[in-house]
Every structure is written in C-alpha cells, then in structure tokens.
C-alpha cells in the first residue's frame, strides 16, 4: 500500500475521482427531485452514471494494483475493441488476418510486460509486414488492399497504440501519470458534452457527428488543458516536466487527441451506417465507443513525456 500511494498525488486523484462520481449522482438526484429534468433524461443520466460507477473503479484498480494488471487491461480492452471493429467492418470474415492482429496485440503487450522497448517498437513494422504477406498463399488478390488495410488499422489502434499506456507501467512512478491520462481523457469527453449543451452554437463537423459543437470542442480543450496542467504540476514537481509550457502542451495533446479519437470512431460508424459498435455498456454502446478517446492519446502522450523525461524506464538488460 505504501508503494501504491508513494506519491501523495495518487491518493488525491483517487479521492477526487470518487468524489466527482458521488457529486454527479447527487446532482442528478437533486435535478430529478426538483423536476428540472424529464424522466427520459433522468433515466439516461442514471444509466450513464451507473456504467461510470463500474468503469471508474476498474480503471483505478488496474492502475493501482500492479504494472501487470494495467498491461492485462490494455490487452483485454485491445482484443474487445478489435472484436467490435472487425465485426462492424466485416474484417472478421478474414480469420487469418484477425488471428495475426490478435497475436500482434498479445506480443506488443508482452513486450510491455517485460520492458523490452526495442521489441515493442519493432513489432509495428514486423506485424504490418506479416499482415502484408500472410494472405498471399491464399492466392486471392481480390480485396487484398482492404483486408490488409483494415488489419493494419486495427493493429495500430488496438495493439501498438493502446499498449503505450501499459508500457508506461515500466516507469516506477507510473501510477499518477497513467491515472492522469485515463481520467482526463474521460473527463474531456464529459467536458465536451457539457460545454456543448450549455453553450450550444455552430456544429463542429455535422456530417461526421451531428451532436458535436465548436463550443464543446473548444470548451473541453480549455478545461481539460487546465486540469492536466494543474494536476501535472503536482505529479511532475521538481522533474524535467515541471514547466508550465510543457504541461499546457501535454494538456492540449490529451484534449485534441482525445477528441480526434472520438471523431475517428464517428467517421468509421458513419461510413458503415451504424450507430454503436456494440451493446455491452448501456447508454454508451460498445467497449470501443467508450475507449475510442484513449486510443490516440496513449501513443501521443507517451512519446511527448518520454522525449521530455516525464517518464523513464530502467534498461532492458
């Protein structure tokens, strides 16, 4: 327990997260009692909050317990996201390609588990090369570009990209940093939704996602960047990242990459003509509908922090 909460900021983040969840429940209760929101909206808000009440403790738990639980989490979420993605796009009919992507996801997370950065990086070109040649013996050139393209896209997002989050666990002080990223990405979604509802105004990209507004995107960028910079100041105190300029860029990166991940999934769904990727999370859709914002943040934040010394790993050998 003393290692888990070695940095006091870890405890603050956990406390604040649970506090926000409790406060949100109280606000919904108060709004419903006063009759200011209708029964349909009340039900939807409870449903969404209920899912958060399950997801947030899982997210906190996997980060706090041990590096291996975080890496197991990125592996399982990666495979669940791949499953939803391949069933929605039709890639699942190409079972050989899916099998290679699954092996790639397992391998890249294994590289994270044993702190082998060289292999972790090499798996990107290696897996893509394997995907490019694997279906050649089938002698079926029709659809080659599409099946390889979809498989590479899937491995990039759910394997190579997401595993960056797990790799951070090789830094002995990973807990508050990973919590900061996972929670502010989730916060960023809620902030965009709330700012958009409160302020309204012109749509951001109406053909891609008709409910998103420019005010929501800009509002989320402002509040998320502020939050990341303030909490980051405490996490990175005295280190090379203890600099307002760098912290603000990190905050912008989280907010912009998070929103881009969301819009990316919206584009995929619009192109396919479907509303949700799955039905496992009531009010949210599928696992991918919830995890989309994290997919692009993980590699972007990882390399930004690694470059500036915000995270560091012991040598592999």
């Amino acid at each position, binding site marked *: 327990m003393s290692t888990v909460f070695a940095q006091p900021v870890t405890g603050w983040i956990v406390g604040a997260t649970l506090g926000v969840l409790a406060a949100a429940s109280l606000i919904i209760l108060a709004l419903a009692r006063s009759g200011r929101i209708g029964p349909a909206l009340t039900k939807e808000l409870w449903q969404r909050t209920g899912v958060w009440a399950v997801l947030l403790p899982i997210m906190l738990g996997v980060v706090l317990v041990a590096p291996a639980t975080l890496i197991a989490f990125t592996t399982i979420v990666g495979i669940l996201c791949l*499953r939803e993605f*391949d*069933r*929605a*796009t*039709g890639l*699942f*009919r190409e*079972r050989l390609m*899916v*099998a290679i992507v*699954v092996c790639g996801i397992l391998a890249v997370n294994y590289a994270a588990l044993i702190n082998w950065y060289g292999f972790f990086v090499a798996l990107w070109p290696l897996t893509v090369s394997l995907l490019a040649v694997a279906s050649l013996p089938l002698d079926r*050139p*029709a*659809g080659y*570009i*599409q*099946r390889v393209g979809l498989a590479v896209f899937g491995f990039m997002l759910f394997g190579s990209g997401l595993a960056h989050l797990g790799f951070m666990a090789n830094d002995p002080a990973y807990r508050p940093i990973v919590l900061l990223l996972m929670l502010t990405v989730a916060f960023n979604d809620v902030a965009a939704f709330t700012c958009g509802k409160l302020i309204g105004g012109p749509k951001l990209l109406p053909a891609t996602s008709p409910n998103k507004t420019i005010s929501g995107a800009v509002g989320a960028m402002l509040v998320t960047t502020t939050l990341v910079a303030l909490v980051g100041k405490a996490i990175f105190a005295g280190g090379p990242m203890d600099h307002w300029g760098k912290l603000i860029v990190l905050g912008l990166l989280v907010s912009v990459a998070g929103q881009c991940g969301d819009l990316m999934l919206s584009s995929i769904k619009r*192109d*396919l003509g*479907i*509303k*949700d990727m*799955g*039905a496992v999370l009531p009010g949210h859709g599928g696992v991918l509908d919830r995890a989309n914002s994290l997919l692009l943040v993980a590699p972007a934040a990882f390399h930004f922090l690694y470059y500036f010394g915000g995270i560091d790993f012991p040598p592999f050998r």
Partner: protein
Amino acid sequence: MSDWQLRPARDLGQAPNARLKSLARERGLGSVLLREAWRGLVGTYLTLAHRPVIEGRENLPAKPPYVLIANHSSHMDTLLLGHVLQGAAAREAHALAAGEVFFGSDKAAIFAAYAINALPVWRKQTKGSDLALMRARLAEDGLVYILFPEGTRARDGVMAPFKPGIGTLVAGTGIPVVPCALEGCHAAWPADATWPRPGRLRVRIGAPLRFDEVANQPRGWVTVAQRCEDAVRALMP
C-alpha cells in the same frame, strides 16, 4: 478485380443472448476455434469408439455452398456428418437443429452455438422471413447446412418420409444437395439412451442432386423432398 464491400456482421448490435439463438449469427475467430476444438474431441472419440467407415467422399463438392442430408435416428448423426467434412466445408458447416431441444435454455444454446455450430429451427413457428434468411445465407455466405429432412429422430431407426422444408432452401438454385445414408447410429445411440455405446458406424455419400429447374413454390418443394428421400433410400443397404 471484384468489389470489396464493408459488410458488417449480420448479427451486429444483437444482445449476446439473442445472438446465440439468431439465424443471423456469424462466427468470428473465437467461435471457430471453440468449434474446431470440440470437433477434434468428437473426431478422436468417433475414431476410437466407432471406427467410422466413410464411402463416396469424392461425391462431396469441392467447396461450399452445399447441403448435406441424411436419414436421422440418433444424435450421433450430426456428430458423424460433422466428422465427415474437412477444411473450409467443416468450418462453414451449420447443423439445422430443433430450437426446442437445442436452444431451449441458455446453457443448451451456448453449447449448440459454440460446439455444434447449430442454427435453430422452431417447430411450426418458422416464419417465411426465417426461411428466406437461411436460403440467402446458404448462397451469399457460402455455408454448408447439415439437415435431416425427416424433421426428427426416428425412434425405431426406420427412416420416415422427408418433409418439404428442404425444398424451400434449394429449389430454383444451383446449390447441390448431397444425400448420405448413415448406418449403425441408431444401434450406437438410440433416442432413449443417455450415453452412446461403441459400435461400427458407416456413411455412404451419394452423388449430389441439383434443383435449379424446380420451381421455388410448394409443389416444387414436395418434388425436392421426394427426390432427396429416393436418393437417400437408394444408398441404404
């Protein structure tokens, strides 16, 4: 070059429970691996306990789609026909099974869907749209259906007349129907026995039948059923 379409799974968005019992259920990698593991176990058991003799394998079409039909007197029949198929045909094989028996409870449905890879047919409740979906999937998804046109297991082991349902799937299409005669299954595992007992099994596979000239309407379905029944009878000793 042929167009590659982004085609979502037919069962996309269905709740897990409903999906198990859905005629639209399409399998991914996980389901295929589970099914292959079960088929491997069954294959080992059949080889050790029943030493099946398979005659006329050369009559099986080179690739799906096709329909495999046989006389039905035992649960062993489905296992044996699943064992006869190899390669892509084995992976695409779906047994059409009585919904009441195989999909009556959640546990049974999980077993039927993941181990047997069965699709449910509900007695007297099958809608026209269900038949249309089964017919469309056979051709479009390149499946193999394992089907017993008698509709139920013959309790005395004697083959009953075929029902016309088979005709709704293949009448007016060029999809081959492969007749098979099964021997020894009733003796090894009759309907009133809980577990099978060892004994020699034999499968005779006949030449495929085609019904592209038969009209897809009630009279045509009866013709299909009659010709299928005659073909299976001709293979019996």
